[in-house]
């Protein structure tokens, strides 16, 4: 009984942040010691729908950047990870991939920011995409690396033995078998990019206004209601993913991805 109660209490506490942020996003004026905001209506959410609103634009800037980074990392990582996984120097390459993976993205940005300045990439959409790709690509390799196993290699070789060309083997054998790995990589990288703040703010020089940048800007302006609204928008895609397939938002190193 106590166990059940604890479980229900835990589930409620997990849902509380979502309810709290939604409540704040509907609010206006919240003087101490009021427990709830004095006004609660959909005015903030209505403002969001206006195409010239900063948040509306930030949402699509974030979406554009995250989609680009996820598409590039997933596709390039897929091809390169196969070469790395079957290479003789695989362990050495994997250690190399762990270096940017372990460094805080914002420290990475501090280190390579100079090269973005001299190439004129700071403060640009493209600059942020490239910077995020440099952080996400090693992560993509780490996701894919355990997918390329001896079983898959023998299936690929069987296809060649049966007369399949490289293109046919790729299209008819490898791609269908890689569906789970590709989806996991795509959504994991999308989330990394979607959640990123420090690197985006530094390389974007505040000009590339994503949702995470907006949260900090609104906090600085002491506009907690818009900050809460930005937070609601930030958790929307991952929650949608959770609804579609919860396994796509969980990744741990050495995950075995079944073909």
């Amino acid at each position, binding site marked *: 009984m106590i166990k059940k109660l604890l479980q229900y209490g835990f589930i409620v506490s997990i849902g509380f942040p979502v309810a709290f942020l939604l409540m704040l996003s509907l609010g206006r004026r919240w003087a101490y010691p009021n427990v709830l905001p004095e006004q609660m209506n959909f005015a903030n959410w209505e403002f969001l729908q206006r195409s010239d609103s900063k948040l509306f634009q930030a949402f699509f800037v974030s979406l554009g950047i995250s989609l680009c980074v996820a598409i590039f990392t997933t596709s390039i990582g897929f091809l390169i990870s196969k070469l790395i996984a079957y290479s003789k120097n695989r362990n050495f390459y994997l250690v190399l991939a762990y270096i940017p993976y372990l460094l805080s993205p914002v420290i*990475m940005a501090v280190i390579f920011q100079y090269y973005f300045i001299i190439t004129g990439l700071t403060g640009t959409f493209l600059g942020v995409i490239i910077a995020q790709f440099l952080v996400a690509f090693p992560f993509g390799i780490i996701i894919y690396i355990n997918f390329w196993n001896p079983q898959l290699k023998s299936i690929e070789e069987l296809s060649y033995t049966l007369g399949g060309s490289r293109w046919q083997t790729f299209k008819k054998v490898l791609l269908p078998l890689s569906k789970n790995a590709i989806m996991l990589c795509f959504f994991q990288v999308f989330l990394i990019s979607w959640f990123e703040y420090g690197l985006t703010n530094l390389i974007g020089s505040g000009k590339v206004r994503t949702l995470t940048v907006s949260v*900090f800007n609104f*906090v600085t302006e002491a506009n907690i209601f818009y900050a809460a609204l930005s937070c609601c928008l930030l958790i929307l895609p991952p929650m949608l993913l959770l609804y579609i397939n919860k396994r796509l938002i969980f990744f741990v190193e050495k995950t075995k991805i079944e073909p």
Partner: protein
Amino acid sequence: MARKLNLKKHLNSKTLGQLFFIAVVTLPVLSGLVYATLYSLGFVGVLNKGFTTENWEAIFFGSPFWTSILFSFYVAVTSIVLSLVFSLSMALSWKKALQKGALSTAMYLPLCFPGTVMAFFMFQLLSKSGFLSRLGFTAGILSELNQFPALINDAYGIGIIITSVVLITPFFVILFSNMYRSENIANYKQLASTFGATKLQLLTKVTLPILLKKSSVTIYLFVIFVMGSYEIPLLLGRQSPQMISVAILQKIQRFNLYDIPKGFAMSILYVLIIISVLLLLYFRNRDFFKTETNA
């Protein structure tokens, strides 16, 4: 002949692919480190006048860098230890509920929260004028705002630790719950109990050693991730002591241009520390970097 040419083409694409990987993974870090080294030694930079070891001496022998590293380490280790205690308790006592039903899905919900959002939520919840303080005031427990304990922007990083624990615990619960099944721990426990092991012995000699050993590298990696976290300490931390990422960024972005070389020196040292830890992890846990491919 055609086969030979095809093989050559294949080899070339392989080499090119590996070169691309090395370039993307190492060039940004290496070239960045070269520039940061030159800047911190006074060779480049607007206000630099030539070779100097002044910045490095200030970082090596001054306290800000080491204080930040130690504070980051303390926050990371405390957060991970607390998360492990909570997650192991939940994963082991709610085994069935975590496999089926509402809890099995609800446990994934905190993974949807980026550090920025959780930090903002915690600020609104735990600050002196936050939601809990308001509830306390309404319930008559507090008579004024300042009676609420300082949980945010405090000297001990309590707000940062609470936020990190809330973000990390669900991850470890899912990890341990999955591991419990994949490692067939129930079978080992049954075997041990037929030999007369007590409940406590089953926990301390069978379950915990298997789970912790199997997840040891992931736990170490999480310590490094938390040490390098930026958004949470930026919102919930204070000026002193600062976590390392915030400290470095503040030096780099300050209006005082004389602080930039010190910021670069700090970032180089931090990168070197992380690479050393990674190499240590690699040499002590070689199996972690192996798969069936080259086992």
